[in-house]
């Protein structure tokens, strides 16, 4: 969010809504109506004075109405724009022309009641719809006592209760009496999988978020007794099943598979009754009930659809297809996030990158025509080399700091420190005019080191670094002392001690500042080519997208033809012909002038770093060398082949994919099929593969329905553990039950068995409802065998990319960087990342393409200045650093016939692992040298500055 707020190429219009969308792809005009915030975003410093003085309380909707705030407020501290706004409905000044208190208290003069609504006509080439999801109607919640019984809360409310910055500071209390509850029940599928409220789909995320909320609650209150009521436990996301298992064991969560029909209050307790699938009825009393509310389509879905002229599906989410999951029905308009269907954060972020690729494909021609790039004046090396002249700026932060810390005393103390030539206090150092005046003062006094004693460098250092750069100083010449968080906030009750501590921090910062050195800001040229490894659906999609965005791309496939696992599918989950998707991908790849396909080829070695890779491939026995700037890993996965279940011993036993291939060739074999038995989770979820393979449930039901369609008299039995038809796939599950397909749940300690009976076979299982062993003679037994990782180990070693414990490639960050590998320049998509359906693979491939094109489009890779540096004189070439570096950013080179370590600055992330392990202290980190850190420590202990260097 901070990144979006800071980019000069992103303009954020808050409080705004779309009014009309005219034109055609590449030339849209979006008419946008914007309501005023009444607070100038550029001037507001988010100090909070206005909220403090406003007499008008309003319900805090961000905190789920559990708290009150005032008419001028900010939803939460990290909100972007990082500026307050005035709730126009509640404000006395806006409605009655009275009060005006906030405007008088605002020292930044940011409050401006003369603001009027604005109409914008934006000329844009492409449009992305990301309105998110809506709320389930409260009438649905009322069925479960919400609104009637105070201790029935929604999961949103519970989330705020468990949040450290929430209304109770993370203490879990019952709304009725503010006491800590002992027993909590989570009810799943509220407003999902429920046709009576019109939401027949599964909201996908609730099972996992309930587990998360329950775990957080247990962390807080270890004595809590938590039960979760599931219809099916749907934790099908990457690593989710394992996380759920861990949480269940660690926190002792009770997982109950039952749907609780209603909640009633008995003498202040909440009574639940339920029936388990063995037919037994149970009841219990709880102190608190949390309703795990599903994701609804956005409230304004209909009007968005009308304005943008796109179609919705039968649940009022955006209509898309499995082959083009990010495209709406109107060209040039794309969709991402929960509006496309309920989904979690990693997937939403992935889709968001994916739509960026779609827009970039459409607008490739006009790349860099309307963008703004920031230029800085030449660095003044002479002044930087002079004796340190330090300026110290101590910030009041309104009353945030000055309310506790004696800012003037700290300022004067700073003046007594050696090397300090200027010491001042500022009201808000981060406000636009303060920054300007700081810049002027730096110039006037020929300062070459700056110390800002204010807030957190995490949020504000980049801002002050910008200021330095804008006047020709190296951004590394600044040091921050966080006297707001570490002094004013944590010691708000002890102002004197807080002031003393502030002095300590300033003294330490000054000591370090005297040793600060300008750091080079190198850039590396990028070879404008991409390498895509793997020619399945994901690989082809990524290659086409990169090529469409205007860059050359080599597609390496180890098999004899393109298509991967997709070529074995007959239908996609939404009923499209899979071969039509495959053929169109293949045709595009073949015809594209920017794509060069290498069949029967495998990667042998990759060397280099982001922007400059050299890869050797073995193509039909011949060795070829490819130079490229980035690489996309789309190596796919394979169908798991089970042992047991008579698989491979009897030709009536087959896997789902084998069944699908058979169905594709013809349906005649179904003629004599009386009973078809499917067994889910063969291999998956703990048998051989630890993970859930995510799509087998939907695939099995899809195939079962296909059999029913062609042979309605065939009986189909499906043995399952949890049916995980998440999202709109739930429709398939419902249809299957309506058509009489029999679902039988089994527990992992009682797996069904396939046995020989005379010339035929049968499946032995346990019917939980009847409580009896059953045996079903089977004409066909179909095993849902799940997805096993491909041969990733070798490739992972070559590029130093980490694998998950399941053998899939690990992304750099599950939520923030879901398609990037920790090693710069490598991107990840498709089954190589983990089991997923075709539409998810395609969206992810687009996302990987979007990320891969960033360095290509920039032409240069900027390197963060905080990187390791090896002093080659001291280096003994032991190689410890190389072996430890998680990013492949250190290599050993021969210098005068001796081994020496060398940092590849383009790949270095500045973690410092190498420096901390170097036995000869040959490695130092830019901005954090040993001398600098030692100087800080000495300054802290000595009480006065000693010269360490």
């Amino acid at each position, binding site marked *: 969010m901070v990144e979006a707020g800071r980019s000069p190429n992103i303009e954020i219009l808050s409080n705004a809504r779309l009014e009309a969308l005219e034109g055609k792809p590449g030339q849209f005009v979006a008419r946008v109506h914007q309501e005023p915030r009444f607070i100038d975003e550029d001037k507001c410093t988010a100090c909070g004075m206005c909220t403090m003085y406003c007499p008008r309380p309003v319900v805090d909707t961000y905190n789920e109405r559990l708290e009150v705030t005032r008419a001028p407020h900010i939803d939460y501290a990290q909100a972007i724009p990082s500026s307050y706004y005035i709730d126009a409905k509640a404000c006395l000044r806006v409605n009655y022309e009275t009060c005006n208190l906030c405007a008088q208290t605002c020292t930044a003069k940011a409050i401006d009641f003369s603001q009027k609504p604005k109409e914008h006509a934006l000329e844009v080439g492409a449009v992305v719809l990301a309105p998110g999801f809506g709320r389930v109607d409260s009438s649905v919640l009322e069925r479960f006592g919400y609104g009637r019984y105070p201790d029935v809360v929604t999961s949103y409310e519970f989330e705020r209760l468990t949040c450290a910055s929430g209304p109770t500071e993370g203490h879990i209390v019952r709304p009725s009496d503010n006491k800590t509850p002992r027993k909590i029940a989570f009810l799943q599928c509220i407003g999902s999988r429920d046709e009576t409220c019109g939401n027949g789909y599964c909201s996908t995320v609730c099972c996992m978020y309930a587990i998360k909320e329950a775990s957080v609650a247990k962390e807080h209150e270890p004595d809590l007794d938590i039960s979760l009521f599931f219809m099916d436990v749907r934790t099908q996301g990457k690593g989710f099943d394992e996380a759920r298992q861990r949480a269940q064991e660690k926190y002792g969560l009770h997982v109950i598979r039952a749907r609780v029909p*209603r909640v*009633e*209050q*008995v*003498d202040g*307790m909440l*009574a639940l*009754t339920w029936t388990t699938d063995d037919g037994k*009825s*149970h*009841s*219990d*009393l709880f102190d608190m009930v949390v309703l795990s509310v599903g994701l609804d389509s956005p409230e304004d879905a209909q009007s968005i659809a009308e304005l943008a002229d796109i179609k919705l599906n039968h649940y009022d989410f955006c209509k898309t297809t499995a082959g083009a999951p990010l495209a709406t029905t109107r060209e040039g308009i794309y969709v991402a996030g929960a509006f496309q269907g309920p989904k979690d954060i990693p997937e939403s972020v992935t889709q968001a990158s994916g739509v960026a690729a779609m827009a970039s494909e459409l607008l490739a021609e006009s790349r860099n025509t309307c963008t703004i790039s920031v230029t800085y004046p030449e660095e003044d090396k002479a002044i930087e080399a002079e004796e340190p002249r330090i300026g110290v700026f101590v910030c009041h932060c309104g009353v945030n700091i000055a309310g506790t810390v004696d800012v003037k005393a700290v300022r004067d103390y700073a003046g007594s420190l050696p090397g300090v030539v200027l010491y001042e206090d500022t009201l808000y150092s981060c406000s636009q005019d303060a920054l300007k005046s700081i810049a002027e003062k730096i110039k006037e006094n020929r300062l070459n080191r700056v110390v800002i004693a204010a807030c957190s460098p995490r949020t504000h250092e980049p801002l002050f670094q910008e200021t330095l750069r804008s006047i020709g100083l190296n951004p590394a010449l600044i040091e921050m002392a966080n006297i707001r968080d570490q002094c004013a906030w944590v010691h708000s009750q002890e102002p004197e001690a807080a002031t003393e501590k502030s002095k300590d921090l300033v003294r330490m910062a000054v000591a370090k500042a005297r040793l600060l050195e300008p750091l080079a800001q190198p850039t590396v040229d990028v070879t404008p080519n991409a390498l895509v490894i793997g020619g399945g659906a994901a690989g082809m999609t990524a290659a086409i997208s990169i090529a469409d965005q205007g860059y050359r791309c080599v597609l390496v496939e180890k098999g004899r033809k393109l298509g991967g696992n997709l070529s074995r599918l007959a239908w996609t989950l939404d009923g499209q012909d899979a071969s039509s998707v495959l053929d169109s991908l293949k045709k595009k790849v073949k015809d594209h002038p920017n794509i060069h396909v290498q069949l029967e080829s495998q990667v042998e070695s990759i060397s280099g770093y982001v922007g400059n890779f050299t890869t050797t491939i073995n193509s039909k026995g011949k060795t070829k060398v490819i130079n490229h700037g980035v690489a996309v890993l789309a190596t796919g996965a394979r169908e798991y082949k089970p042992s047991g279940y008579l698989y491979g011993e009897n030709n009536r036993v087959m896997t789902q994919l084998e069944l699908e291939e058979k169905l594709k060739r013809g349906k005649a074999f179904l003629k004599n099929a009386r009973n078809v038995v499917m067994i889910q989770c063969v291999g998956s979820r703990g048998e051989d593969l630890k993970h859930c393979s995510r799509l087998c449930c939907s695939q099995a039901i899809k195939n079962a329905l296909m059999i029913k369609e062609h042979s309605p008299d065939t009986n189909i039995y499906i043995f399952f553990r949890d049916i995980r038809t998440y999202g709109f796939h739930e429709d398939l599950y419902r249809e299957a039950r309506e058509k009489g397909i029999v679902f039988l749940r089994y527990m992992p300690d009682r797996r069904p068995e396939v046995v020989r009976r005379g010339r035929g076979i049968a499946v032995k299982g346990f019917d939980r409802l009847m409580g009896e062993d059953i045996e079903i003679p089977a004409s066909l037994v179909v095993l849902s065998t799940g997805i096993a990782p491909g041969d990733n180990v070798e490739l992972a070693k070559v590029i130093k990319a980490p694998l998950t414990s399941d053998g899939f490639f690990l992304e750099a960050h599950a939520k923030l960087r879901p398609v990037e590998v920790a090693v710069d320049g490598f991107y990840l998509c498709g089954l190589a990342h983990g089991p997923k359906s075709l539409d998810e693979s395609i969206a992810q491939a687009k996302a990987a393409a979007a990320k891969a094109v960033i360095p290509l489009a920039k032409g240069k890779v900027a390197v963060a200045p905080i990187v390791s540096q090896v002093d080659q004189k001291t280096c003994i070439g032991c190689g410890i650093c190389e072996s430890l570096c998680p990013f492949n950013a250190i290599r050993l080179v021969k210098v005068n016939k001796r081994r020496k370590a060398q940092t590849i600055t383009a790949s270095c992330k500045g973690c410092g692992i190498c420096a901390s392990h170097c036995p000869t202290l040959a490695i130092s980190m830019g901005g954090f040298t040993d001398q600098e850190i030692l100087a800080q420590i000495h300054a802290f202990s000595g009480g006065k500055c000693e010269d360490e260097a």
Partner: protein
Amino acid sequence: MSDVILGFCCNYTSSVDVDTLKKAGLVPEGLRIKRLPCTGKLEINTLLDAFEQGAEAVFVAGCQIDKCHNLSGSQRAAKRVGYAKKILDELGIDPARLEMFFASRGETEPIVEAARHMSSVLSDAESIHR
């Protein structure tokens, strides 16, 4: 051992298990619940028999008068409870030991209240079985 309170509940009142309620301390320990398809099925004999079998107090919980699943079942029950009360009175037993309650469908709270009411009736009365 606390006094035995016998409750006759129709099938449409609370479905929360009595043991669950006892464990939470919401109802007296001596509460027993007998479920009937409908309280209209209750005969006076059955009510009196309950006292003979050791109950110190008996209550009947049926549907709300105008919302009975079987139209007039709970009305019938209420009448019979009335007759039985008279008989108890003639036998020298406090008629307050037998009471009729009407509970909205599926609600547990009225049952809990009924049980507590009966318990309070017994609180300073002597046992009839001594």
